């Protein structure tokens, strides 16, 4: 699939901009702070309804304005879909697809697929588990939008359960904690939690060979990346087969029962997918804390490219699942060998959007449309 047009209003530094796009490679070149990342952030937002840079939407709205609008036309399996998103701070987004409003914003998830790699992705390898969980969940939603519902069910059940534990913890000190509904919340947390964990474990299995391959191609070295799922219930997961959803449901229920006393002391749910992690190893060492800067870069990039390959191989119900590939400021960080191999990898892609501060950063063989980004304008070079 590819974008044929992008239009922004009051998004980040852009007051209004129209960008016609074509298949193949497009490069966006401009000095620091001119709005290159803002532009590709908007494309990512159109696909995921969240930014790769910030957890909340407020910074996406141009300073002094109340709402931002991102519009994109997507061509997929011969059909064009217009997706329009209105971002209002502190309220739900409004979403229209082909000019008709959707009942829920998440109905538009999955219409456009993107894979975005940016310098921030280094935290995938080096940062906290949160970023890695998000990597998995975003990919799950891209492949099967129903996971957006499962994720939000889980989050909501978790918030309810935590609220109950907190008030019970407070009441326990005065000797009258009300725990009659705790079992019910355990059941809800375990049900959606099991679906989420099962989805993530399955995804890790699917993506692992692609990570291996992308890393080998990029880094041309021997150490092999290994992915496993660290689960708060059952260390064994990843070693001997994938547990079924029912097994995970049971494991979660048992796990919750086992830590109940601690949970009541702390007023917090201590077990479940919100505490799990995607463990990335290189050779027989964990990447975090051991891998070099360059190795971390290649690993992070390999994770994203693997996500890209996985989506590409899985067309989804609308056909043509190949995502738009976005590389923000990537080439400047790579040595010549890795540059050449990355170039090779992406030259077949349906659509690639590349940003760079100077034209020299983009390998010249990646010919395509080139744009100059300067002070809120995006202009196609003659």
């Amino acid at each position, binding site marked *: 699939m590819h974008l044929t047009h992008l239009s922004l209003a009051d998004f980040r530094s852009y007051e209004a901009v129209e960008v016609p796009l074509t298949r193949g490679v497009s490069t966006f070149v401009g000095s620091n702070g001119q709005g290159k990342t803002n532009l590709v952030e908007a494309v990512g937002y159109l696909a995921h309804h969240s930014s790769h840079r910030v957890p909340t939407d407020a910074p996406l709205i141009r300073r002094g304005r109340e709402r931002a609008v991102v519009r994109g036309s997507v061509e997929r399996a011969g059909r064009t879909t217009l997706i329009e998103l209105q971002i209002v701070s502190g309220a739900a987004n409004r979403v229209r697809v082909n000019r008709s409003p959707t009942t829920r914003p998440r*109905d538009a998830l999955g219409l456009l697929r993107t894979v975005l790699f940016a310098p921030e992705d280094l935290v995938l390898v080096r940062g906290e588990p949160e970023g890695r969980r998000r990597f998995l969940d975003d990919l799950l939603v891209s492949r099967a939008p*129903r996971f957006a*519902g499962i994720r939000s069910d889980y989050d909501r*059940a978790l918030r*309810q359960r935590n609220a109950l534990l907190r*008030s019970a913890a407070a009441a326990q000190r005065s000797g009258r904690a*009300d725990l009659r*509904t705790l079992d019910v919340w355990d*059941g*809800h947390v375990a049900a959606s939690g099991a679906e989420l964990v099962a989805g993530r474990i399955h995804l890790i299995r699917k993506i692992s060979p692609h990570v291996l391959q992308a890393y080998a191609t990029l880094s041309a070295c021997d150490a092999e990346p290994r992915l496993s799922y660290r689960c708060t219930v059952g260390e064994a997961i990843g070693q001997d087969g994938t547990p079924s959803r029912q097994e995970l449901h049971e494991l979660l229920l048992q796990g919750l029962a086992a830590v109940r006393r601690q949970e009541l002391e702390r007023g917090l749910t201590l077990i479940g997918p919100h505490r799990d992690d995607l463990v990335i190893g290189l050779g027989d060492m964990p990447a975090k804390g051991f891998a070099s800067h360059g190795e971390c870069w290649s690993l992070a990039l390999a994770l994203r490219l693997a996500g890209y390959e996985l989506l590409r191989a899985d067309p989804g119900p609308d056909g043509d699942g190949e995502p738009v590939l976005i590389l923000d400021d990537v080439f400047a960080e790579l040595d010549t060998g890795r540059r050449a191999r990355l170039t090779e990898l992406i030259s077949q892609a349906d659509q690639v959007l590349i940003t760079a501060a100077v034209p020299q950063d983009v390998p010249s063989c990646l010919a395509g449309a080139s744009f100059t980004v300067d002070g809120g304008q995006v202009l196609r070079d003659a």
Partner: protein
Amino acid sequence: MFEGVVQDLIDELGRLPGIGPKSAQRIAFHLVQSDPVDVQRLITAMQEVTRKVRFCEVCGNVSEEERCRICRDPRRDPSILCVVEEPKDVVAIEKTREFRGRYHVLGGAISPIEGIGPDDLRIKELVGRLSSDEVTEVIIATDPNLEGEATATYLARWLKPMGVRITRLASGLPVGGDLEYADELTLGRAFEGRRLLDV
């Protein structure tokens, strides 16, 4: 911020469900500019409602008397109780004209975030009604969202020892809609709640 009384009105209106700060402002200024007779009619209606309306002693529905219209109606089947969250759910089910039993209004759903536990709902009253052994079936019709489901599960476990038949309203596909437009969760639930086709 506006001057004293106007801002007070805006604040009060803003506390009503479904009215945000902007609408509150619009309504307030509309009232300020309206014919005093119209405003008085609104005031009277609101006063009457607080003066006359109370909750039915039996089912918890809104009523102008001790017992609501439905609880007084001898034609309603006393052996089936339909448990709902709010009085407005009674109205919705009554519109279907399908249900001939009686209701029990809980007054909300279990939600620890909002500090609502079982004791804040009319569950004791429900148990009281069940022990009178006239009731043979309880239909749980709480909302099909997380809190409604949690309340349904809790009730079902709580009522099970009382030996009545407990059922849950099926949640499924919107009638008149296209299958292809139903979201995955609704479709999934509809599958779980599928029934035998009698031909």
